[in-house]
């Protein structure tokens, strides 16, 4: 990665984190923490598929539940991974945060409406699936883009990254849908908190 990309990534990530923190309310802090922990652990789980082994990312789930607050959650997860396991490293922390959290926010805006419609089960499942897989797709495109900006040829780099993440997209979509359904049944306020405009209590 070239220094320009690293600095730009860190700057944009910092802006995203600032927006996320501004939107963060006291009562939402625990759910951000839990999802941050889920994100932190998810990357450690390896699923061997064919020759390669892949790991879950869960940024789509963070996105549709947390919205902009996915930025601080992702930052914390990645920072701990970098500090404890030397994944990624501190210098690439900003770019990595941006690459994972920006798709989450995009998916929040793209598919949030599907989750807001409380009574349609199919729409709910489909938009959760789309949110989960789309976030991974956008994330891998962003990784390809940042490699391109650092001097690698875009198409080969992006192709490799996207191809490697195709199975993850399917798995994550399914997992996000299952988790969203589970949350809707057991703890709907976690989903609604981000979506339903706050009614006067």
């Amino acid at each position, binding site marked *: 990665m070239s220094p320009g990309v690293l600095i730009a990534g860190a700057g944009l990530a910092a802006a995203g984190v600032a927006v996320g923190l501004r939107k963060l309310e006291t009562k939402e802090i625990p759910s951000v923490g839990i999802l941050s922990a889920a994100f932190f652990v998810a990357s450690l789980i390896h699923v061997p598929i064919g020759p390669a082994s892949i790991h879950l990312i869960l940024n789509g789930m963070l996105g549709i539940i947390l919205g902009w607050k996915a930025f601080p959650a992702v930052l*914390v997860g990645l920072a701990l991974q970098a500090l*404890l*396991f030397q994944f990624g490293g501190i210098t690439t922390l900003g770019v990595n945060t941006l690459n994972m959290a920006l798709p989450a926010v995009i998916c929040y805006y793209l598919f949030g409406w599907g989750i807001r419609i409380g009574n349609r089960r199919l729409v709910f499942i489909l938009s959760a699936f789309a949110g989960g897989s789309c976030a991974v797709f956008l994330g891998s495109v962003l*990784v390809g883009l940042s490699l391109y900006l650092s001097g690698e040829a875009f198409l080969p780099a992006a192709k490799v990254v996207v191809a*490697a993440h195709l199975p993850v997209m399917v798995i994550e979509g399914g997992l996000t849908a299952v988790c969203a359904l589970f949350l809707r049944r057991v703890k709907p306020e976690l989903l609604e908190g981000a979506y339903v405009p706050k009614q006067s209590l």
Partner: protein
Amino acid sequence: MCRNSHCSQRVVRGRHLFFCLLFTVLWLVFFNAPASAHKVTIFAWVDGDTVHTQSKIGAGKRAKGARVLVFDSEGNRLLEGKTDEKGEFSFKIPKKDDLKVVLKASMGHMAEWKIPADEIGAVGDVSGSTVPEINVKSGIEEAVRSTDVKPGLEAVSLTRHEVQDLIDKSLDRKLAPIVDMLADATDCGPKMTEVIGGIGYIFGLVGVALYFANRRKKE
């Protein structure tokens, strides 16, 4: 009213706790072998005038067809190559200098290994010096006698080079498992304690955030 809301908040917090425990327990039960997320490692060792490298992706997966670049202490690129099926790549030492071996795997993953000049220097001195022929006949005879093998064995005279070669080969063979173990040890994935520690850190951060949020509210 105030008491009510406090109560419900406590219930919500209890549920949160339940949830996080459920999540962690589920993860840990279903995937009790946490492996590293695409962490790439390269391990290089000097053997005679050659440097062998072994590259891995994740825990134990060999990095096939990845680029290996070799730099000197001033950052000049000396040579580059690709790893084979086993993730290994060997090259002749191009220069007596601090070498930096960099692995570039796909998707921007990188790893490096440094070989200090004195490691190379020591090797170079031995292989480079021309030594006079010495007779190790008596030593071998003694060895033969002491082990009580066939007494008719002819006395052999070996050059120092040949002795060096024999020792090197035998050492290589005997040390191979240790080198492999070292290569494995350098990329041991995250341990359970670290994973749990990380989760603990996150909950700790949540606690700190809640503390400050509550204090701000009181003020």
